[in-house]
């Protein structure tokens, strides 16, 4: 499995759209007038690129036995409504320990060519 470490997927372009951001803010109980909630990064960083990993036969992710174990986001700055961002996912680590597969996936997000946000997700997949 470890041959996928270092593999990157094609960059994904995402528009930060007002209606979607407001719906997300309302769903999580944040103030919809306060701009883009920090964990909207789940949309523009994490899920935008995780689908590429989960859909990759070479990565062979057993989605039915997958748990999201750890998550980290870092921000150089936060996006604003109307921004366009580009997210690129890379497999960072893929190790087996005690019949569990630990798969770490990093996503780098840029805006106008400058770093905006980083996401690091650890998935645990039961064997």
């Amino acid at each position, binding site marked *: 499995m470890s041959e996928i470490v270092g593999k990157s997927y094609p960059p994904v372009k995402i528009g930060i759209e007002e209606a979607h951001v407001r719906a997300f803010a309302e769903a999580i109980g944040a103030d919809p007038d306060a701009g883009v909630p920090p964990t909207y990064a789940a949309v523009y960083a994490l899920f935008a690129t995780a689908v590429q990993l989960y859909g990759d036969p070479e990565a062979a992710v057993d989605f039915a036995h997958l748990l999201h174990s750890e998550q*980290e986001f870092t921000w150089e700055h936060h996006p604003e409504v109307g921004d366009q961002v580009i997210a690129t996912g890379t497999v960072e680590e893929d190790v087996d320990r005690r019949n569990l597969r630990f798969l770490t996936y990093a996503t780098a997000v840029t805006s106008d060519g400058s770093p905006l946000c980083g996401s690091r997700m650890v998935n645990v997949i039961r064997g």
Partner: protein
Amino acid sequence: MSQGELEPFTWRVTREQIAAYAEASGDHNPIHLDDHAARAAGLPGVIAHGMLGMAQLANFVVAYAGDHRRLRKLRCRFSGMVLPGDVITFSGRVAEASGNLVRLELEAQNQKGERVLTKALAELTA
């Protein structure tokens, strides 16, 4: 509440909010929406998305920070399942405030005292 501690924050977990989060985030994994699918995956029933819990962690930190744009880092481990009907209490303290950075140590427990988010931290610009 001693000096340096954040005002605790309570989150009441409902099926309606989990469904709304699935819709808004695009994460339609059936373990969050369908009890049968959740049980087939070895869970007691539907569970909240880890990211919905992390969103509440962010709400907690933003309530302290005043403006989410101060947030530079947010991290947690999803240590326990969060179920509809649970009441989650978030607590935190200022661990370090130096230069241009404030570091918060955070955690979340359910109504039974079980920790559902661990290794949680946030960094804010001062």
